[in-house]
C-alpha cells in the first residue's frame, strides 16, 4: 500500500508538510511566502488580520489556522487575493495613525513591509482619525496605540510566554483597543519589564523600547535592503530573529535585551 504523501500544492507548486502544521507554517518552512501579520511562529495561531487569507480547494480561509492536509489545492499569490490583501492593509492604515516617514519603527515594521510588498500606493479610504492617547508612563517602554493593528501578539506573548497577562483586547467593533492590566490602566503601573517578550513582539510601532529609536538609521533596517517576501526563513522561525524589537540594531544583530529574550524564545518554542 502506498501511503498518502504529506504534500499539497500552493499556486501549483508542491509543498511538503509535517502533520500538525498549518498551511502557513508549511509554506514558510518550504520557502513560500504568504503575507501575514498576526501569525508568529512562537505563538498559537490567531486568524484575526486575515492577510494570509488563501483559497483552499475553492474556499476562502486563513492559512495560519487551517491545518495542512494531503492533496490540498491552495491559491495564494493571485491577483485577486493580493488585491484583497491590499484592501485589508488599507483598512489597517486608515483605522489608526500610521505616519511611516516619521515612525521610529520604520524599516522594521511588518505592516509597512507588507504594504510595500503588496504595492499599496495610497490608503485609499478616508482616515478615521481615532483618538488614542499615548501612554508614556513606563520608564523603559512606550505604548502608542495609534499604530496598533489589534494583532494581539502582545496579549499572547504576555500571557503565554511571560506569564504576566499585561495586555488584553477590550471593547468591540471600532471601539476595540488594547488595555493594560494595572489598577490605573497605565503601563507604568503594570509589571511589564523591557526584557519581556511582550515588550518586543509588536510588529508595528505600538510598543517600543525607549531611548534606542534611531540607533540604526532608517534605510539600513530589517526590511530596507531585503523585502519581507525574501525573508521567509526568518518568518518561519527557522533562523534567529534579528529584527528584534525595532530598537534599530536590525540585521547587524545583538545590542538590545529583546534580541536575547527572542533567542531564548526561539529555543524554547
Amino acid at each position, binding site marked *: 500500500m502506498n501511503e498518502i504523501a504529506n504534500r499539497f500544492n500552493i499556486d501549483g507548486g508542491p509543498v511538503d508538510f509535517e502533520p500538525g502544521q498549518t498551511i502557513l507554517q508549511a509554506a514558510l518552512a518550504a520557502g513560500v511566502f504568504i503575507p501575514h501579520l498576526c501569525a508568529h511562529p512562537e505563538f498559537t495561531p490567531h486568524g484575526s488580520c486575515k492577510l494570509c487569507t488563501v483559497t483552499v480547494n475553492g474556499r476562502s480561509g486563513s492559512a495560519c489556522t487551517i491545518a495542512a492536509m494531503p492533496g490540498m489545492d491552495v491559491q495564494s499569490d493571485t491577483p485577486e487575493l493580493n488585491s484583497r490583501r491590499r484592501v485589508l492593509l488599507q*483598512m489597517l492604515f486608515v483605522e489608526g495613525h500610521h505616519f511611516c516617514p516619521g515612525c521610529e519603527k520604520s524599516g522594521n515594521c511588518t505592516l509597512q513591509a507588507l504594504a510595500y510588498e503588496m504595492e499599496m500606493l495610497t490608503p485609499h479610504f478616508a482616515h478615521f482619525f481615532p483618538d488614542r492617547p499615548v501612554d508614556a508612563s513606563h520608564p523603559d517602554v512606550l505604548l502608542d496605540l495609534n499604530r496598533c493593528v489589534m494583532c494581539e501578539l502582545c496579549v499572547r506573548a504576555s500571557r503565554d510566554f511571560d506569564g504576566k497577562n*499585561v495586555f*488584553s483586547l*477590550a471593547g*468591540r*467593533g471600532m471601539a476595540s483597543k488594547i*488595555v493594560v492590566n494595572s489598577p490605573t490602566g497605565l503601563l507604568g503601573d503594570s509589571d511589564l519589564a523591557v526584557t519581556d517578550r511582550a515588550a518586543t513582539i509588536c510588529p508595528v510601532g505600538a510598543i517600543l523600547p525607549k531611548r534606542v529609536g534611531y540607533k540604526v538609521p532608517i534605510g539600513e533596517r530589517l526590511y530596507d535592503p531585503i523585502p519581507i517576501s525574501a525573508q521567509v526563513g526568518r518568518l518561519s522561525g527557522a533562523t534567529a530573529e534579528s529584527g528584534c524589537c525595532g530598537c534599530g540594531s536590525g540585521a547587524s544583530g545583538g545590542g538590545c535585551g529583546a534580541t536575547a529574550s527572542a533567542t531564548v524564545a526561539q529555543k524554547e518554542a
Partner: protein
Amino acid sequence: MSDLSEANLGALSAIVDKYRRQPTYLVQVLREVQDALDHIPPAAMAYVASALGVPIGQVEAVTAFYAFFHDRPMGRYRVLISDNITDRMLGSMALVEHMLNRLKLKLGEVSADGVVSVGLTSCTGMCDQGPAMLVNNRTITRLTPRRIDEICELIRAQVPLDDWPSFYFKVDDNIRRADMLLAAQWSPGEALRAATSLGPQGMIHELRLSNLRGRGGAGFTTAVKWEAARNAPGHGPNATRYVVCNADEGEPGTFKDRVLLQSYAGHVFEGMTIAGYAIGASRGFLYLRGEYTYLLQALEKHLADLRKMNLLGRSVCGVEGFDFDIEIHVGAGAYVCGEETALIESLEGKPGRPRIRPPFPVTHGYLGQPTVVNNVETLCKVLEIATHGGARYAGLGTKQSTGTKILSVSGDVDRPGLYEYPFGVRIAQVLEDCGARHPQAVQVSGAAGMCLSEREFGRRIAFEDVPTAGSFMVFGAQRDLFEVARNFTHFFAHESCGFCTPCRVGTTLVSNLMDKIAAGHGTQYEMNELNRLAGVIKGSAHCGLGTASCNAIVDTVQKFRPAYEKRLKAVDFEPAFDLDAALAKAREVTGRDDADAHLAQGMEQH
C-alpha cells in the same frame, strides 16, 4: 478612582459569593454589579477581578465588550430605544426625538442631575408590538407619544421601575397560526420518559430518522451534532459534556424564541434534558439574551418546579445515573454571541468573540469539553420526535427540511406575530395569511438574510430554497429599501466584535459609504466601492457576522437599484464634505465673500 462605600462593598461581596467566586460567571457577576450600582466603576472592576482571580484587564475587556455594561454613570434610568427597521417603520425615531425634547437631552447624553440617559439599541425582539424600549433592561412595548410623556414623568419623579404601570411591561405572544409545536400541550416528562425508554442510542436513532435540522439558521443536522458530541471523549480530570440552549435571539426581526421561552418553557427545558440524556451530559445552560431579562424570574421558577417533579436533578425521571440540571446565563447586549463559539466564550466569562473552528464545540466546547449548542426551537422539536418517532416527523415538510418552522412576521402587515407552517410554504402564502399591505419586498432571516422582491414571492421557505432563522419582515410599496439596507449596515458596524480586520474596519467603511449616499454625496464611485468592499468582507471575515454583513446591500443594489440611483449625483466622485462650506471660516477670517472666495463642488458646475 473612587473607593467603594461599605454598603456597596457588602453588595459586591454578596454577588461574588452567590456565584461562588467562579471566573466563568464574570458576565453574570457584572450584570448584577451594574444592577446594584447603576454602572460598573473601576473600583468595582478591581474588586471583582480580585474576588474571581482574573486579571483586571479581563474585567475591563468584558465590561467594554457588552453594550449593556457601562464603566461610567449612564443615569439611574437607562433608556434604550429599539432601533430595528421595523421599530423605525412604526415611528420610533419621532418618539426618540420627542423623548429627548421632553427630557432636554441629546442622544447618549446623561442628564445633569445624573438621573437619566436615552440611547438606541439593536433589535429588542418586539417587532410585533413595537416600537419598544428597554429601561434598565426591562422591556416596554407599544410606545406612543403619550406613553413617552408618562414615562418622562415617572423618570422625573424618580418612581422605582417596580411601581410603573404593569401594563407597560406586557409582552404578548401573538400566535396567529399554530401547527405541530405551537398547538402542542406540554405534559411534563412525557417526552423525556419516551426518550429514556428508547435509550440514548435509540433517541439519536429516532432523531436521525426525523432528519431534524437546526432552527437557528445554519440548519445543521441535529442527530449528527448529538452523535458527534456523544462519541467525543471528555478532556482532563473534569471530563464531562454540556448542553447549551442558544436563546440569544438577536437577529433583527426574529422573536419566535421569545414566545417559546415565555409560553413553552417546559418544551425547551425538556428538550435540553433529552439532549443531556442522549449525549451523556450532566449540565445544561440556557443562554438568555440580555434583552429578554424580563423572562428570567419565570424561567428560574420553572426550573425549580422541574426539580420538584424530578425532571431535573439527581436520577432524573428515576433513571439511575442520569443526573442533569440546567442553569441560566444572561447575556448583556451582543448580537455576535448568537454565534455558538462566541456564546461559549461568553458563558466562560469572556468577551464574546467567535473562536477558530475547527475544533468545533461538539468536541471542544464549554471549558474545552464536548458541547452541543442548539437553538430554542430545535430543542422544542425534539419532544415531538421523542414522543411520536422520527419516521412520523419526517413525513411533514419537504425532503431536506422536515417538520414545521415558526416565522416571526412583522412590518407592513395587518396581523404581525408568529406563524407556524410545515416547511415548503410559499412566501406568497405567508403574505396572504398575515395581511401584507402592498408588499414590494420581504427580508427573510433578518439583517443577515435575503431580501426577496415581488418576483420571488413564489419561492418556498425551506433549506432547499429560502433558508431562515425565523425572521420575516415585510416592506410595503411606500418603503425605501435603501434605508432598510442602511439600517442593517449600521447594525453590523455596531455589532461587529472587532476581532478581524475586514469586519472591524469594513463594516464601518460600508456604513459610512451608505451615509454618504444618504446625505446626497454619493456617485457611481460609491456604488463601485460598496460592491468591492462587500466582496472583500464576505471573502475574508472570521465568522458569519462579517460574511453576512453585506448581504442586504448586495440584494438591494441588485433588486432595488432605483432606490440607490435616485440619490446619486451625476459626477464621478464627490467628497463626503461640502468644499465650499469648509471655506466658510476662512472667508469669515479674511472678510471676503466675493465669487472667487467660493469653490464650486462637482464637475458639472465648472
